[in-house]
């Protein structure tokens, strides 16, 4: 899922400086699951903003909305009847959702309420960890199912580098060396021969370097 973290409230208040009448829009998708942008967070954020603004002597009117998903046009359309009544929309969906809203409602300023994080997994309740960078060119079959692009701080294809000590990355004591994990897994799978192979240069053109990526499935259109 797509993860995120709430933006510091000070930053949001600064964004909202020009406005007195806004929508706080949540999303029932990934951000609900990672508990940063669902209905509950809409309520918490809206309350927080009202309190902060009133304490500062200037009230703000907030409409609390949660869309099924902000990344599908049909759901976004549900906001159209009233979006014009508000000066801005503060979205706590992921960056994709926020942008999609902005694209659909061209005359209303769209503001981000969260910092979109990464494609991750729930390690346990309240802890998420990145697993994929969406590079568009998967090599997991060669690396024991552990992604060198995501898990190695240097995205090396022939790690580990000299900074790996007892399975820990030099970058942070909390970070496991991705390549140690790969090697351990390859050993367990009996696939160490994959390690001894020189891998071709990575084609980053399938990653972010190629501008916004598109997927078009003719069979589904």
């Amino acid at each position, binding site marked *: 899922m797509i993860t995120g973290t709430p933006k510091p409230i*000070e930053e949001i208040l600064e964004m909202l400086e020009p406005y007195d009448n806004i929508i706080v829009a949540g999303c029932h998708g990934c951000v609900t699951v990672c508990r940063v942008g669902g209905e509950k967070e809409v309520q918490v954020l809206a309350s927080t903003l009202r309190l902060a603004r009133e304490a500062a002597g200037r009230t703000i009117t907030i409409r609390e909305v949660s869309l099924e998903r902000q990344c599908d046009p049909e759901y976004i359309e549900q906001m159209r009847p009233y979006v014009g009544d508000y000066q801005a929309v503060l979205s706590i969906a992921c960056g994709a959702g926020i942008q999609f809203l902005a694209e659909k409602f061209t005359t209303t300023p769209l503001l981000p309420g969260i910092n979109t994080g990464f494609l991750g997994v729930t390690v346990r309740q309240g802890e998420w960890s990145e697993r994929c960078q969406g590079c568009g060119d998967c090599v997991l079959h060669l690396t024991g199912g552990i992604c060198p692009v995501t898990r190695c701080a240097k995205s090396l294809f022939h790690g580990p580098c000299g900074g790996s000590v007892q399975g820990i990355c030099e970058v942070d004591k909390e970070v496991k060396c991705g390549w140690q994990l790969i090697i351990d897994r390859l050993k367990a799978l009996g696939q160490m021969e994959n390690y001894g192979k020189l891998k071709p240069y990575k084609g980053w053109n399938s990653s972010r370097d190629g501008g916004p990526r598109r997927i078009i499935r003719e069979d589904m259109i």
Partner: protein
Amino acid sequence: MLPCTGRIDESLLLKAFENGADGVMVIGCLEGDCHYVSGNIRARARVERVYAILERIKIGPNRIRMYNLSAGEGSKFAAFANEFVDQIREIGPSPINLVRAGNQGVTEKEAT
């Protein structure tokens, strides 16, 4: 009154402040003694979050506090309530109430 402090959540706690509370006490079972196993631990985390929010939006952090008591500690409850009320009196009315009083000439006071 709630079945368990585990029922209370951040949005409701903030709601109390929006409605003009100068302070909120959350009182749960002793830690490790929760009737519902872990509700009070969850509540503590939520109270801590609201505490942090209030601090950042300058309502003041010491306006919310979680206390843990057993059902047999009536006098301790009274002491906690007095302590908290004194603390709130010292901090004074919530900025929300000050603003509202300025606008409407009405102040809602915290009763014990």
